[in-house]
């Protein structure tokens, strides 16, 4: 007998992500992991703040940053966080198709964010000659924002893998926790971006 992970339509659980023991562990485990991620980004922010004026004669933050694009990126990512909330809402209602739909929108927005970020970096490099190697500021900027971008890429791969893999299987107690942990991770990435938007871009425009 293999364990039965399928949803029983007679007796639906309030939150399919937290029925199994493994599901609960995953959820707590990801929260714990995010604690470590917080320190990771805190260290990167500290490094960035220490080096943001070390331009060594290269372009400075005031010269290169433009708010329009970054604002669009912020909107994309914030909206994608919201759509993932809808997706989880539908998961709790055991509506697999709607969940997939909203996660699909999330992925679409996330990829849009990535495209913007790639354009932004390319713009800095070609138009200003501002690279990873220009100055300590350059290194710190690309590392901090790049680490966030890397997290977005991981999140996107995770989400797309989940959606493709489960497209035919539907929702069950085995994969519900996976969707749920993804959503939690995605919110975290969104929060980090809010900090980047404030600390890197807004503060970088002003000072």
């Amino acid at each position, binding site marked *: 007998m293999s364990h039965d992970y399928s949803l029983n339509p007679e007796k639906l659980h309030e939150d399919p992500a937290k029925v199994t023991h493994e599901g609960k562990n995953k959820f707590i485990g990801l929260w714990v992991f995010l604690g470590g991620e917080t320190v990771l980004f805190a260290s990167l922010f500290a490094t960035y703040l220490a080096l943001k004026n070390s331009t060594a004669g290269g372009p400075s933050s005031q010269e290169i940053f433009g708010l329009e694009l970054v604002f669009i990126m912020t909107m994309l990512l914030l909206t994608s966080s919201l759509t993932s909330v809808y997706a989880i809402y539908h998961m709790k209602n055991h509506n697999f198709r709607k969940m997939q739909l909203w996660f699909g929108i999330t992925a679409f927005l996330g990829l849009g964010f990535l495209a913007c970020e790639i354009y932004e970096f390319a713009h800095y490099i070609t138009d200003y000659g501002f690279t990873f190697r220009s100055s*300590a500021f350059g290194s710190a900027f690309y590392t901090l924002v790049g680490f966030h971008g890397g997290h977005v890429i991981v999140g996107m791969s995770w989400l797309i893998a989940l959606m493709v893999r489960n497209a035919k299987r539907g929702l069950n107690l085995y994969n519900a926790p996976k969707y749920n942990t993804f959503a939690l991770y995605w919110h975290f990435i969104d929060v980090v971006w809010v900090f980047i938007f404030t600390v890197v871009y807004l503060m970088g425009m002003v000072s």
Partner: protein
Amino acid sequence: MSLASAQKKGFGAILWDYLTTVDHKKIGVMYIAAGAFFFILGGIESLVIRVQLMVPENDFVSAGLYNEMITMHGTTMIFFAAMPILLGFMNVAVPLQIGARDVAFPFLNALGFWLFLFGGILLNLSWIFGAPDAGWTAYPPLSTQSPGHGTDFYVMALQLSGAGTLMGGINFIVTIVTMRAPGMTYMRMPLFSWTTFVTSILILFAFPAFTVALFLLMFDRMFDSAFFDIALGGNAVIWQHLFWIFAHPEVYILILPAFGIFSEIFSVFSKKRLFGYTSMVFATFLIAFLGFMVWAHHMFTVGLGSVANAIFAVGTMAIAVPTGIKIFNWLATMWGGSIRISTAMLWALAFIPSFTIGGMTGVMLGAATADYQYHDTYFVVAHFHYVLVGGVVFGIMAGLHYWWPLMFRRVLNETLGKLAFWLFFIGFHLTFFIQHFLGLMGMPRRYWVFLEDQGLDLGNLVSTIGAFFMAAGAIVFVINIIYTAVKGEKAPQDPWNGRTLEWAVPSPTPFYNFKQLPLVRGLDPLWIEKMEGNGKLTAAEPLNDIHMPNGSIIPFVMTVGFFIASLGFIYQYEYPIAYLALYGGMAIGIGGMIVRSLKDDHGYYVRKEELEGEVE
């Protein structure tokens, strides 16, 4: 699945069994074995250092090789000897102590082990291609300018094993939060489980800072970024901050589990409940908390300014308070008890005065003004060896003697054990006590040679002699292991008159640990049952099917992939062909993740009928 069949497997099958295992007990033993191997390597390196410093202006090793020795000794001992052995104890004991059948993330746990092991192998491969030579602290710009690939090996090895350790930490936090047996409330957990929990929290919050520091160093060395490049506006002190934000808590990551081990041993061998259990738990948390607040006491001479120095000085001294609470609680545990001095207890007893000295020199170092003299001298070397050997290594030795019957069903020979203890103990004090004075007399640390006529000759000679006593002690211990394996008698299930749950499971421990989860009715649950004359645990559930995870080769394969990719990273800026290794390795590693994600793995069940057939 019958347990007896496990005895008749061939070598290949056993190897496969260990490569694919997700059983925390096996992983624990592998951690300890690998850690012991690296401990021997680190020990040999330390002997080379001491031989070089036996007489003034010696040329036993060259200056460059000497710097490689000190770097490898420090890195190996901390990351690849002490930490994995302690993680091994956690794996072996904690799930049993809290009454769990398994850990929360068995797959991740296995992955963490393999990452550590291959990190250690990668680091030691550098002996063939040129080892790191900038000290285990790897301060830039020395580390960024270090020629060859030594520092690249350092970076990648620690990045690999650091990721593994982080996984281990997360695993234990979740295990302890969600998998305690019925009735095992937090305040009934054995102290070793508590220190494991707090240590895991420290790992979680400390390692990412180091991960970032290593990335910065890696980017500077491999991809020409400018974090530590002064000409491009870089700032080398950032490394020192990030490094010590990690490395100070790291000291507590090492010492807290040792505190846990001693707490178990003092209690068992005094036949008394741990004195002041609540304050012990509280003190553990306080030490961990303060441990994050004091990193800059490693940087008093960096020029952070007097305000910073004053704050960090006072913070550092404050750690003496919870540590003092612990010492006095251990003394009070012995007070009024019935003390049996087994080898495990002997190591624990030796720990008290040794660690007290180490703790006190710690407070002395915290006094910033005096630290302007102590900093980076042999006084510091003496201090941290009193803490790390007198605390951590003694703890490891005590733990090995204490849990050996649990792991290997044999009791280590007591005579050989005591001989090893005395050799090591005398050697330890001989080696390190005099180093306090060497430092004060003007000998900075990491000195390849010291000059004649500077009053440092005698102290260094004594120290070297002591090192050989320690080596002799270690050799006797190895002989003891072999002797016990060959001639030792089978250990009973509960050889020490234990108090905690790991002594309540049959010997050998079934892979599912508990046939029925126990009902815990208080601190020291086994002791409570003994006192009430049951001698057996009360079951918290009827006999039922047991769900267990499947073994998997994926953690091993993934690690090999990342290992190959690391070699690619190390060599890509010199040989473009290394990109092949980089991308190939990453493909294997990420491929492993994808396979793991796409495949359903529901584990399996041990049938109730099978369990009924097992004899206790």
